[in-house]
């Protein structure tokens, strides 16, 4: 592939051994991330989007979890095979994460300054004074007013939107190559969501950071991402350029998903489409297409075998028996 690929995930599998059986949370996920790209991972709850990203930082709790296979090549080096010391060099430094709930991801007992400075001292080798200066600069960049004063406050003294700004400042303070944002705006109001997305966009562009954005909101993906992966029951069912996927979705699940979101720019007088049925229980899932019970175009073969990934156009692929050789 081209040189500017910084992260390559190949056939990643993450299983959880539970009392009820084997939960294949992520079952053969492959994608690439290029320099400066914003990649969206969309899916509903339980589709495996968060576990995918925990797995690539090796943050899956073991046991009950287990990375059952695959490779995560970060600048050519497999993260899954790194020693603990090596992975600590990557985590929070080269790849950093922000999470959905900024209250639970900041330590409530420590001042914001302590938490920001710790990161900088640890990864950048700065002394405390220089680290504090850099931290104030990052908070300012993240749009926090009066950062010199705010930095000595505790997390509960910040509002939800401000806390997420602190998280972003912390995540970007070591100038990472990749920022993983796991539902960064789900807990926030729309007007605050717009501010935070704008901030991520602006800072990633300025610092040249590639972003993996995990979300269930198609609207957020549409506004932010260059490429997207659509996940269903632990696998990527469709992948490609965001514009093309929204204009011409191929997988019946993607098609249904896009049609079932009410849209502000249309007069919603006609009935909303809805995908029938429930998302599947991923425990002990048989080797068939997990979407077939809900699919309008299901065929016999869908019930017996998981569809192979077929290329549909440049850089686009889909896992469905309607396309490729299976046709």
């Amino acid at each position, binding site marked *: 592939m081209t040189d500017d690929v910084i992260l390559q995930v190949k056939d990643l599998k993450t299983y959880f051994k539970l009392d009820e059986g084997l939960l294949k949370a992520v079952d053969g996920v492959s994608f690439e991330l290029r320099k400066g790209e914003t990649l969206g991972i969309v899916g*509903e*709850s339980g589709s495996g989007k968060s576990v995918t990203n925990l797995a690539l930082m090796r943050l899956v709790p073991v046991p009950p979890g287990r990375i059952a296979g695959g490779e995560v090549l970060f600048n050519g080096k497999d993260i899954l095979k790194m020693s603990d010391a090596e992975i600590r060099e990557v985590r929070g430094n080269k790849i950093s994460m922000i999470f959905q709930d900024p209250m639970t991801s900041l330590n409530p007992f420590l001042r914001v300054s302590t938490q920001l400075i710790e990161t900088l001292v640890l990864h950048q080798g700065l002394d405390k004074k220089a680290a504090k200066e850099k931290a104030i600069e990052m908070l300012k960049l993240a749009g926090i007013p009066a950062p010199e004063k705010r930095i000595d406050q505790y997390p509960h003294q910040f*509002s939800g*939107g*401000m806390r997420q700004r602190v998280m972003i400042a912390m995540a970007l303070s070591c100038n990472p190559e990749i920022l993983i944002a796991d539902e960064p705006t789900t807990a926030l*109001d*729309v*007007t*605050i*969501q*717009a*501010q935070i997305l*704008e901030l991520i966009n602006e800072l990633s562009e300025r610092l040249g950071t590639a972003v993996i954005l995990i979300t*269930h*909101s*198609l*609207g*957020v*993906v*549409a*506004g932010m*991402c260059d490429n997207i992966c659509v996940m269903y029951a632990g696998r990527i069912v469709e992948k490609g350029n*965001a*514009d093309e996927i*929204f*204009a011409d979705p191929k997988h019946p699940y993607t098609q*249904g*998903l*896009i049609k*079932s*979101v*009410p*849209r*502000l*720019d249309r*007069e*919603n007088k006609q*009935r*909303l*489409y*809805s*995908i*029938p049925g*429930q*998302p599947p229980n991923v425990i002990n899932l048989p080797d068939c297409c997990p979407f077939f019970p809900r699919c309008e175009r299901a065929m016999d073969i869908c019930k017996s075998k998981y569809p192979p990934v077929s290329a549909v156009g440049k850089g686009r692929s889909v896992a469905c028996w309607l396309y490729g050789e299976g046709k």
Partner: protein
Amino acid sequence: MENNDKLLEVRGLKMHFPFHAGGVLNRKKGFIYAVDGVDLSIKKGETLGLVGESGCGKSTTLRAVAQLYKPTAGKVLLKGKDLTKLPAHELLEMRKDMQIVFQDPYASLNPRMTTRDIVAEPMRIFTKAGLVTMSKTEIDERVEQLLERVGLSRYFKNRYPHEFSGGQRQRIGIARALALKPELVLCDEPVSALDVSIQSQILNLFKDLQEEFGLTYLFIAHDLAVIQYISNRIAVMYLGVIVEVSDSAELYKKPLHPYTQALLSAAPIPDPAIERKRQRILLTGDVPSPDQRRSGCYFYDRCQHRMDKCKENVPTLKDAGPGHQVACFLYHEPA
């Protein structure tokens, strides 16, 4: 004044919660002005959407309407009767016409009750109070009928809530709300906790049930696209007051209040081609805390169009076209 086609009328509703200093003396320190003078009316068969950000008082309004809170001030007229003045037994009778569907389908169903008991409970309570007469078999039949109407199998009636997914649980919550054949259903963010593919199923179910049973909804959501889809009219709330009321289509075509404009422009549209061309109005700052009385317009600090007169005077809802009201000095002068 008393208009018959108005099923629900809310006038000057206020809900202030006291907060205490804590400690030994536990002095009363002040009030949270959660709802601070709300007027609403809903016609029979209509859906009024109530939209706003967290902390704006939309859920408190709904709970005060349902008399789950005793309002600090104001009237809540259901079919012409003021619920805030009714004695307990008469209020119970009125509750038959007014039921609630809650946001969190995990917290609003008792985990120790079977689906049958959950859906039958309102009917049992009202039979016991002598307000309806239903035999055990009648109740049982009605439970099965309700479950099937909301898209669940009758065989699910012996199962417990934990055996269902979020969407199915919300269906149980809807069946329970419909058990007494209410006229008004108060919906407190009923689809916010659901996945996209399930959300559209439940929205369509609400629409079908409305058509079939002639229901009237007060529907709360923070997702503007959802509100537009389900509502005939929409009220936009900010810091305990309603800043704009309008027909659903009109509000999206011609939002008047600067807050409504910002809210609409912030809502993402699932289409990259459109998203790229959109101009966003980015509001600065956060919603102020509702624990202080303000002298001027509540939106003053964040408004793009703020003027001197907004600082001193509180705008009230005034007509701004047919069926369209707005509380903003851009459209009318302070009194």
